[in-house]
């Protein structure tokens, strides 16, 4: 089972956090600190796996963003890398050549995509098409900001 997914920049700024098990805020902050310092300290061309407490940390860098996924000890590291990659593909498909700024400014979208892909620390849907379809149709339901502005307020 996956425990958490963090996205952070090369400067250690957090861009997205998803916790699949309930953890106290204090603990979260500590973990985020540990993760950023551990992952950012890695030499280039090192392997993408780390052991941390009883978890496996799998990270991968895409452009300026680090994706950092923590899984249970018996999980398959290569599969976890695949999960990260699949998520990046989904983001790419949605935003069209995704970049860090897309995720910063549309962070809620990034969460919605993630929620369609993973749920409660498990993979929910392995098919990219299905995930994309779901997101598109729920976006259809969501009104745009312009609509919201032009509507009367009652």
């Amino acid at each position, binding site marked *: 089972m996956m425990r958490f997914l963090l996205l952070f920049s090369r400067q250690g700024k957090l861009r997205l956090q998803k916790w699949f098990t309930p953890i106290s805020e204090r603990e979260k902050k500590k973990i985020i600190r540990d993760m950023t310092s551990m992952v950012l300290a890695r030499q280039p061309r090192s392997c993408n796996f780390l052991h941390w407490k009883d978890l496996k940390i799998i990270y991968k860098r895409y452009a300026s963003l680090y994706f950092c996924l923590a899984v249970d000890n018996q999980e398959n590291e290569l599969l976890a890398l695949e999960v990260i990659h699949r998520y990046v593909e989904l983001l790419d498909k949605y935003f069209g050549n995704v970049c860090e700024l897309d995720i910063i400014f549309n*962070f809620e979208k990034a969460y919605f995509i993630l929620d369609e892909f993973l749920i409660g620390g498990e993979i929910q849907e392995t098919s990219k098409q299905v995930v994309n379809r779901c997101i598109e149709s729920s976006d259809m339901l969501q009104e745009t900001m312009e609509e919201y502005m032009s509507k009367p307020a009652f």
Partner: protein
Amino acid sequence: MALKIVKGSIDRMFDKNLQDLVRGIRNHKEDEAKYISTCIDEIKQELKQDNIAVKANAVCKLTYLQMLGYDVSWAAFNIVEVMSSSKFTYKRIGYLAASQCFHESTDVIMLTTNQIRKDLSSPNQYDTGVALTGLSCFVTPDLARDLANDIMTLMSHTKPYIRKKAVLIMYKVFLKYPESLRPAFPRLKEKLEDPDPGVQSAAVNVICELARRNPKNYLSLAPLFFKLMTSSTNNWVLIKIIKLFGALTPLEPRLGKKLIEPLTNLIHSTSAMSLLYECVNTVIAGQYCCSLGSVVLCVQKLRILIEDSDQNLKYLGLLAMSKILKTHPKSVQSHKDLILQCLDDKDESIRLRALDLLYGMVSKKNLMEIVKKLMLHVDKAEGTTYRDELLTKIIDICCQSNYQYITNFEWYISILVELTRLEGTRHGHLIASQMLDVAIRVKAIRVFAVAQMATLLDNAHLLTGNMQRNGICEVLYAAAWICGEFSEHLENPMQTLEAMLRPKVATLPGHIQAVYVQNAAKLFATVLKSQEGNTDGTAAQETSQLMIERLPLFVQSANLEVQERASCILQLVKYIQKLQQKDVEVAEEVSALFAGELNPVAPKAQKKVPVPEGLDLDAWINEPPSESESEDEQPKAIFTKEEHKHSRPRHTEVDEKELAKRREARKQEQANNPFYIKASPSSQKVYQESTGVEHIPVVQIDLSVPLKVPGLPMSDQYVKLEEERRQKQRVEKKKKEKKKRKEKHSGRGKKRDSGPESEEDITPAHMVDIVTEEMPENALPIHTPITVCDIQGNLQDGSQVVVSVIFENKCDGFLKSMEFNVLDSLNAKLQRPEGSGPHDGLTVPFQLPPGVSNEARFVFTVQSIVMPQKLKGTLTFIVKDSSTHEKLDFKLHFTCTSYLITTPCYSDAFAKLLESGDLKCSSVRLEGVSMPFHHLLARICFHHHFSVVERIDSCSSMYSRSIQGHHVCLLVKTTVSIDAKCDEPTLLGNVLDEIKQTFSQC
């Protein structure tokens, strides 16, 4: 109404949306915290509006701020409001916010049950979807119990989109509410054969997780999974199924046999590395029941992985290889060349994996070869961590299973000696313990070992060059002991004796000097013996003279152990000299002092000694020492483990079980300690001085500090109180010092105010806690300073608080480059000079020689003073002669009291203030306070900065003002109840709490 609508619409035009917020934050890099706090204020305004769109927008922004690390728990109820909106747009945002911010202890979750139930049964599948997604993040046992049925129904929903979500959420529900598993299981099993592949894989995932927790309940599903495995082409699902089988096979060996074929097929056929790796892992895990052929296949495949240029595959290959090594060492050993190659890899984690493997791969034949390779790597290695790892690995490899693989101990001793040349290692004591162990247990090696050790002592200066911080000097401990104990093997004992008495020795750590002194005496005995035998006696007298000349150096040592031994031996030698002058032969008698052979003892020998009847080993011989002393007098030896300290019984009253456990622990410890029988009390004592070697005890400093504030308390009383307090502290301080915990309530810093209205103006106790947490320390911290900070607070007007910190150097090293830093909170910030970043520390403008203290002041800006708060900070510094940065963590505690200023108030003004009606009322009772009323008043004045306005018989009115101008009025009655009024209720509450605290302490 219409007006309100129009107004609402116009307002919204100016609302920040998420994008504006993000942009704003990016544009305010300099004062981000300030910008965000204004944003939070705006959001609070927006949340107060009725319009759900505005609220949703606000909640969305809060979710973003939450990610940045700001506390948004106060908005939990607003999140629930947005969640319950009927519009999907807002609902989606609400659930997102909830899933990010809610946790089990969020109390508003209770309110959501019905809303979630409504959403779950919504006709719109996306409404149900977001509810399920949200639930997966914040489901509590209560929610799980209440909603289990609804979710179970959804598992058979018509839409696969809902079904797969429901199946996955069920797992979370099982965890929170295990009773739901039994009724839901049949349906879950059904889903394994769901027509939709997504639902199917979800069910596999859930059962896989469940089976991992409790495999035997799921054995019956094996045939079904077997069918899935052979039919499925989805690698994601296949990996999960194979994992599941990995959990089941240990329970059912026949399963392993059946699996081996499809698994080997997959290994041969698949191109997906993740699947290949999973298969290999499963085969390895169940290998006890499978053929050698499949193991060989796995090793072959792993070799391909390790040879791959992809670092990840290399790493995993090595990882899996080490698992095979445990059961099939032979098949791995043939790949030694490959593993050794990995030691050259750029990636440290790969090198460490390879090292792990090597440990298991050595044999009598290849040990020397492997160690030789490792020694080459030691020379090349960059970075002390890796080099230290190599060093420990070399020693581990050599000494494993009682030196099983070592055929030539001379070689091993040379390796150990070579390792001492390693710069900057902190494993000196490890090498030393090996030297001792080998020299004691392998008799045949002693001649060689002694010769090597003598050279080592002779060349000690090579080690000592920079040894103070790297701890390699620990080997001198072993060298000196071996040369002394086995001095009969020395070729030239005189030379070694001189080497041991060089003045330079005095710079070594105390415990090593002590060993030097003791063993110099042993050597002295040997030298005397040889000299008396063949010459006329002048040589022997010269040797005594040498001792008498050199020993005083050690007699002056600051280390008690060294001093004691040196003065004993000095007196002895003086006596010997007297005898020598009378031409008495003393050599025999002197060597008798150190007679007796030391025998190695088998680890289990103790067991064979029967306990005499009537002897209770666990009974106390003397009354146990008090808690505070026991920590201090705890003897420490470097070669025993740190657990020592904890295993020491604390109390006489223990039950049988505990005793048995303890006995076991002790036996264990003795077994692990080759020197157990030897452990002369003195050699243990030597280490007392270096108590801090591995671990610096927590230093807790609790300081309360007077503030310099204008006011006019009745000075006589305060002087008295102050006297009392100091007296108490002195006693306390002495007590606490023993425990290396400091608690000071010092009035040292009192200062006269120049203001005309005050004569004696000590107002009390701005509580400052400095809690130094553990000091990470890797080198032998013989010089680790324990810096005690003494803090004095000082208040000025407005929102500034000046904190004076006294730095006191308690160690014997020179401290420099001190940097003071505090982790700012939203509310309180350390004022830093222009141009420095928000996390930069402030340089303390002085250096500290040992034993000296000095004061520095730091200004803090505090925005809101209604709440007390704690700031965390660190002090970093460098001890001269070692370039490492050391760190001391502390906490600054700003109480509300410290924001109060003693301000005089006339009774008519006071009455007016009370009448004005702006003030909120509150009251508190002080329980169990029995002191004269005027003492009580004095205490409140003193500790909490109040002044007495008027006193009438049984009650007294008091007044104080905060630095931001809040009025605080008290009415204290002899019945020890306090009625209080203040224009800021939170502040008042906190101040009253603090007053209560003060009186509960006395």
